[in-house]
């Protein structure tokens, strides 16, 4: 469903050029659980951002369901991100001014639906991650594990085909990390959600269906 062909990403500033990803070829198939591993600065997050249509490659092309995304405009990319992809970030990126349920509703705000339907789906997503008792709390009132579960609820509320998780357990202790992983594996196995997860943890990598290893911006497997 997502294909990267000879993708290269260079970050340029006034003085230096940094090659973040070099000639990367990757096919993400429906229902896969892929772990992207590698040391810091190896290009893992860059790869995830490219897959998630948050960034554009400097060279090469990215195909989504057979169409090259380079031809898509801002509005089309926004719609694709909204319908196809759900993001889970290491630092949660919840909006502190909104309650848990309002945070979860965010992806649905950009779809045509009634307030009631939006609320119903958000509550269902929160139930899915076991947070029904915290719907009206604010992020600052939750533990790290709970915040990440809210972030997962937000990521899955729009029923995306692909979940992109950037070190989702990086800021959590091992017990909470395991809880989050079990939710991700469950979504993958039982709901056929494709998961691409960046992780440093070899133990989590072993649990994934496939590992993509990066080193200095290059694929090494």
């Amino acid at each position, binding site marked *: 469903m997502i294909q990267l062909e000879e993708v290269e990403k260079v970050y340029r500033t006034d003085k230096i050029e940094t090659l973040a990803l070099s000639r990367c070829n990757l096919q993400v198939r429906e229902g896969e659980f892929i772990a992207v591993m590698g040391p810091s600065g190896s290009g893992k997050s860059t790869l995830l951002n490219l897959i998630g249509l948050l960034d554009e490659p400097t060279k090469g092309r990215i195909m989504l369901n057979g169409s090259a995304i380079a031809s898509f405009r*801002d509005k089309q990319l*926004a719609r694709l991100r*909204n319908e196809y992809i759900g*993001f889970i970030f290491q630092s949660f990126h919840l909006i502190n*001014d909104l309650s848990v349920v309002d945070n979860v509703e965010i992806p649905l*705000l950009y779809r045509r639906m009634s307030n009631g339907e939006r609320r119903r789906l958000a509550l269902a997503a929160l139930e899915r991650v076991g947070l029904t008792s915290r719907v009206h709390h604010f992020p600052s009132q939750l533990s790290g594990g709970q915040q990440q579960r809210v972030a997962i609820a937000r990521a899955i509320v729009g029923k995306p085909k692909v979940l992109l998780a950037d070190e989702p357990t990086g800021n959590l202790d091992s017990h909470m990390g395991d809880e989050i992983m079990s939710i991700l594996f469950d979504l993958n196995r039982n709901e056929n959600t494709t998961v691409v997860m960046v992780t440093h943890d070899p133990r989590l990598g072993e649990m994934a269906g496939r590992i993509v290893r990066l080193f200095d911006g290059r694929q090494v497997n």
Partner: protein
Amino acid sequence: MLKNYLKIAIKVLLRRKFFTLISLFGISFTLVVLMLVSALLDHAFGPLPPEVRTDRTLGIYTVRMLLTNNFERTGPAPYWFLDRYVRTLATPERVSLYSTQRSVAAYVAGEKHSLFLKRTDGEFWNILDFQFLEGGPFTAADEREANFVAVINQATAELFFKGQPAVGRTIAVDGQRFRVAGVVPNVPIFRVTSFADVWVPLSTAKSNGYLRESTGSFLALLLARHPGDLPKIKEELQTTLARVEFPDAREYSRVITAAETLFESVARGLFGSDRDARNYAGYLLGLLLGLAVLFMLLPAINLINLNVSRILERASEIGVRKAFGASSGTLVGQFVVENVLLTLIGGAIGFVASLFLLNALTGSGLIQYAHFQMNYRIFLYGLAAALFFGLFSGVYPAWKMSRLHPVDALRGQSL
């Protein structure tokens, strides 16, 4: 979506209370000042009883008399000039001559009071629309026969008669005794034409010297048959001025004046050259509008600055929203909603504060007999301008931030 936007807008406004307060103060203060200034201008120039026929009334407020020795005199007109050359104009339906108001003494129960006295002819009461509380005006016949009759305002009636009927009773003002013919509501001191405490016939002046004096303290009021006649009246007066014969030709060489509205007269005083009877109302209007726009620009710039810093703080939120499907246009919309909300709250505060201040100013008696009212039309203009600036100040930083790359935004980087 709007509900979510409003929720976050309120949260953001509450989070940065100090900035919010400054923004709200800027918007409401601007509106309050606009309201006060427009109320004052309305009071001086707008249609207000008894001057309700402003669309077909002109006046002669000042004349410039050029002297043969290259000096000049500027001020109210001499009586002979108005009587001979203005009263005889053919185009106006009615012409009234009246004096400037003069502060005179009146004694009530041995106590001295200062009142403003104005001497008028009978036509004065036909052109202005005074609503008599008691009795009626004096007439042209009263003026012709120099009858000692007076119209007094409500405050003077209260001063002399303490709530008792006034008509038919006598008052002593400026050493003369007048029989009260009628009582009218108080007219604010701003109304150059109609304001006074006591109005008496011109001919009751202590001497008839005013008929011949080369300088004077008289004004004229001209009522056109139709609003369309105003330019004809102006033109007729200018034609007439060319053939003015001075009682003392050795002293005077020329008279410059214009039939104009009070606003035009003020504008000519401000912008006109010494020998000019052109209409400068457009200049004054332009100046006032320019000042208003300049005055509104200040809070707008303040708002832009505050908005830029407020929105820059929210890079991460912008990144999240972009990641979950917000397009740049949607984000601009969100920030616009926030700014419109802020502006509307500021507008509401400005509205309430303006009402309060106008009432307080009326109640204070600072401006004699003034009764300030909210000018809703100006308030709506002010609010529309505030909304425009609110939108402008929100759209620009929002547009800049919406162009922020989502990856950079998620990292919390700003532009």
